[in-house]
C-alpha cells in the first residue's frame, strides 16, 4: 500500500502568525479521511498545501509518492492526477457544460469524447437536466454537485472536498 501523502515538519505562516505545524503525517491510499477542527485551526490551509495551491514555508511535502519541488512541470503533472472541490464551489462564467468540461479540455481531450464524458459525469451527479443552464444561476447545493462532477476526472488518484458539514446528502451512483 503506497503512501499518497507525506508531510514532514511542515510549517505555514502568514506574516508573523503560524497557522499550521505538522510534525509527521502520512496518508496511505485507498481510504477516505476526514479532517475536523474548530475554525481557524488550519484545516483549509492543510488541504490547500496538499492540493498544491499553497507553498509551505518549512518542511517537506510528498504527494503521490513524489517529493514536491514546486516546479511548474511537476505541479501540472501531479495536479492532473488530483482534484479538489472547494467550499464555495466556484463556477466559471458560462454553462454547466462548460464548467464540467473544463478539466477535460485542459487535458486536451477530443471534443466528441468530452461531450460524452460530460454527459456521464452530469448523470452521476444527477444534474443532467441542468446541462445548458448558466452555472451562476444554480443554488448552493446544485453548485456543489456540479463542482463534484467537474472534479471527477479519469485517472483521479485523490479527491478532496472542503465543505461545512452537513452540506449535502445525495445518493451516489457507484460506477
Amino acid at each position: 500500500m503506497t503512501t499518497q501523502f507525506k508531510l514532514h515538519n511542515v510549517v505555514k505562516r502568514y506574516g508573523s502568525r503560524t497557522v499550521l505545524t505538522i510534525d509527521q503525517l502520512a496518508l496511505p491510499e485507498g481510504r477516505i479521511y476526514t479532517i475536523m477542527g474548530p475554525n481557524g485551526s488550519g484545516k483549509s490551509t492543510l488541504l490547500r498545501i496538499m492540493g498544491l495551491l499553497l507553498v509551505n514555508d518549512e518542511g517537506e511535502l510528498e504527494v503521490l509518492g513524489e517529493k514536491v519541488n514546486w516546479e511548474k512541470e511537476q505541479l501540472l503533472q501531479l495536479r492532473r492526477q488530483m482534484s479538489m472541490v472547494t467550499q464555495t464551489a466556484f463556477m466559471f462564467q458560462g454553462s454547466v457544460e462548460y464548467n464540467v468540461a473544463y478539466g477535460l479540455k485542459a487535458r486536451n481531450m477530443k471534443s466528441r469524447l468530452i461531450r460524452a464524458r460530460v454527459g456521464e459525469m452530469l448523470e452521476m451527479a444527477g444534474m443532467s437536466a441542468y446541462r445548458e443552464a448558466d452555472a451562476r444561476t444554480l443554488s448552493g447545493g446544485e453548485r456543489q454537485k456540479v463542482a463534484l462532477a467537474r472534479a471527477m476526472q479519469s485517472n483521479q488518484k485523490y479527491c478532496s472536498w472542503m465543505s461545512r458539514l452537513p452540506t449535502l446528502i445525495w445518493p451516489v451512483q457507484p460506477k
Partner: protein
Amino acid sequence: MSIFVEGIKEGVYLIWQMDPEIIQVTLLSLQVSLTALLLSAMLGIPAGAALALKKIPGKRIWLNTIYTLMGLPPVLAGLLVYLLLTYRGPLGQFELLFTPSAMVFAQVLLAAPIVCGLTARAVMALPQDVYDTAATLGASRRQASATIMREARIGIVAALTTAFGRVIAEVGAVMLVGGNIRWSTRVLTTSIVLETRMGNFSTAIAIGLILLSLSFLINLLILKLEKRTLRYDNTIQIT
C-alpha cells in the same frame, strides 16, 4: 437655442448629402482611433494582466504611475510626440509628423495606460477561486491565465470602451501632431475647432453631433457583442 436646431438640421443634411469631406473626416477619425485602440489593446491588456498577477518589485509604484498616465492631458501627449517626431528630434528621420500615423502614435500614448490600468483592476478584482479552481482541475499556467482573462472579460471590455471614448473625442493631441490638414489629417474633433474658430457654430455643432452618434453606435455594437456572451444579468437586483 436656435443654434442647436440649426446644428441638428445641418448635421442631418451633411450626412444625408453624403458630403464627401465629412465622410472622409469621419472615416479618418474612426481609422485613427480604432487603430490606436487596437495597438493599445495589444500593449495594454497583457501589461495590465502581468501587473496584476506577477510579483514585481515596486508594483504599487508601477500601478500608481499607470493610473496617473490614465489622466495624461491629450495636448501634452501631443506635444511630447511632436517633439519626438520633429525633423531634428530623435525620430525625425521617419518624417511622420503631420501624418495619420503620428496621430495614432499620440493616441496610443493616451489609450494604452487606460487599457492597462483598467485591465489590471479587472484582474485584481477576481477572487482567488478562479485560479484555484482552474489549477486543481488540471490547467497549465497558460490555460489558467487564459481562464483568468476570460473571467475578467467584462472589465476588459469596459477598459476598451473607456479608452475608445477618450481618443475619439480628444483634440489636443491630433491637432498638434496632425496639423489639421484638409483631406489629410483633419478629423471630426479638429474640424469642430476649425469651424468654431471661423465662427460657424451650427456647423461645429453638426459635426459634434455626428461624433456623438458615431460613439453611440460603436458602443452599442460592443454592448451587443457583450450581451451575446453573457446570458445571465449578473448585476445586483434590488426589490
